């Protein structure tokens, strides 16, 4: 439900007020850096992978309410998922999980998706280098 008196849904505000998984992971298996200062949104997403499953995810974000909420949400959504499942999380799915975003803020959900993909990419690259093969 979208609250008329707020730019954001209650769910977005809830994640904005109490963002989940804030921070960095020491010795992460993958890190994604996306965004740039010109647009005012910068996200860092860290993942820990155990047996092809994302065991933990954390983020650091410089950005607006939507940027923080989508970061929080995407880290929640990804935990416990296999790499394959995680790659299927779309920006729309993140936005929907937050009960929607204002149209001018949809780019934040895109950023969250990209941060996740970029962290997984980083993990896969490192792994390929290390073990030469990974089961998705």
């Amino acid at each position, binding site marked *: 439900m979208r609250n008329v008196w707020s730019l954001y849904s209650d769910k977005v505000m809830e994640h*904005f*007020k109490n963002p989940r998984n804030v921070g*960095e992971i020491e010795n992460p298996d993958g890190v994604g850096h996306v965004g740039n200062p010109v*647009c005012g949104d910068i996200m860092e997403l860290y993942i820990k992978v155990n047996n092809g499953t994302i065991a933990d995810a954390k983020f650091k974000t*410089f*950005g*607006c*309410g939507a*940027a923080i909420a989508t970061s929080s949400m995407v880290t929640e959504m990804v935990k416990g998922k296999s790499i394959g499942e995680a790659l299927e999380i779309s920006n729309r799915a993140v936005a929907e999980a937050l009960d929607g975003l204002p149209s001018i*803020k949809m780019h934040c959900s895109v950023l969250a998706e990209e941060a996740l993909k970029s962290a997984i990419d980083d993990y896969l690259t490192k792994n390929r280098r290390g073990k030469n093969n990974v089961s998705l």
Partner: protein
Amino acid sequence: MKRIYLDYAATTPTHPEVVKAMLPYFTGSFGNPSSLYSCGQEAKGAIQEVRVRVAELIGARDEEIVFTSGGTEADNFALKGVAYANEKKGDHIITSSIEHHAVIETCKFLERRRFSVTYLPVDEYGLVDPDDVRRAITNKTILISVMHANNEMGTIEPIAEIGRIAKGAGIYFHTDAVQTAGHIPVDVNELEVDLLSISAHKLYGPKGVGALYIRKGTKLIPFMHGGEQERRRRASTENVPGIVGFGRAVELAQQEMSEEAERLTYLRDQLIKGLLERIDHIRLNGHPQKRLPNNVNVSVDYVEGESMVLNLDLEGICASTGSACSSSSLEASHVLLAIGLSHEQAHGSLRFTLGKWTSEEDIGRVLEVLPQIVAKLRAMSPLLKSHR
């Protein structure tokens, strides 16, 4: 939770006295001022009284005041009106790079319609250099437009000096006084301006009303075409209750201006001092002295503006930011970039603008709350680390 409104530069609440003054003109003296019969003439008389009052506020003559639907229309009217009326003389306009969008976007429109525009730079405090104006003048220049005070960072521009240059060169000079009229002294003769924009809702009047001062003899064509209202200079049925409210607001401003400016300057400086003391990696934007009495604009390193505004809102405090995220473009404030801030700093700006109902306790509350918000957001900032 008590709401602490600190965004008076965005809009002011309409003063209860203003609302009271407007009410009779909705249902009682509701006539169309163009009508011949008494209830139309009554409305016309009411408008005329306001015209005299607005003229008085800025040292003008009543017939030099044209009512508009706000500051944006006044700016559009001034720029397009002068440009179209004087295009045979020249096609060049000079303005600054920190104007309100109402001026900047109008200039961009005129550029697409074969005018050429020079956007002057500003210094680190946001000041236009009058010498830059002088140097930018060509024999094609027909109009100079520089705002009286900037709406984001409150810097007050050297309008009188630019006015003298414009007058010497025989070029029309417009100033957007939306942020100054009713707040600090504004006199069209001291400032040597030919056109000046005002908006009622920035001085405790209603939204949707403003005025353009047009010095007698200024050549410009109407912006709103149609009926013969405002001596054929601005068509459309006059917003009588709105204009009457504007008049009452101006009356109140005249009575309270100097005292209020002093009170706000004190609170402003308290807030600036407190913020700089309590938060590190913070800077004041705009000129420390040549500044509106009610404006505080800071950039807080490593955190983004909208997230601060939203957190302040959760604490009942209304403020604004020049961050991209507050608009549908993703660009940070052109004003903050113009004074040389980095994109991060521009996105990390926060504006508090004080007003009639701002108290010392309100300032105290901001000083108590904001450091905690900044700490919380910095804890999740990926920028802090990289700057460490």
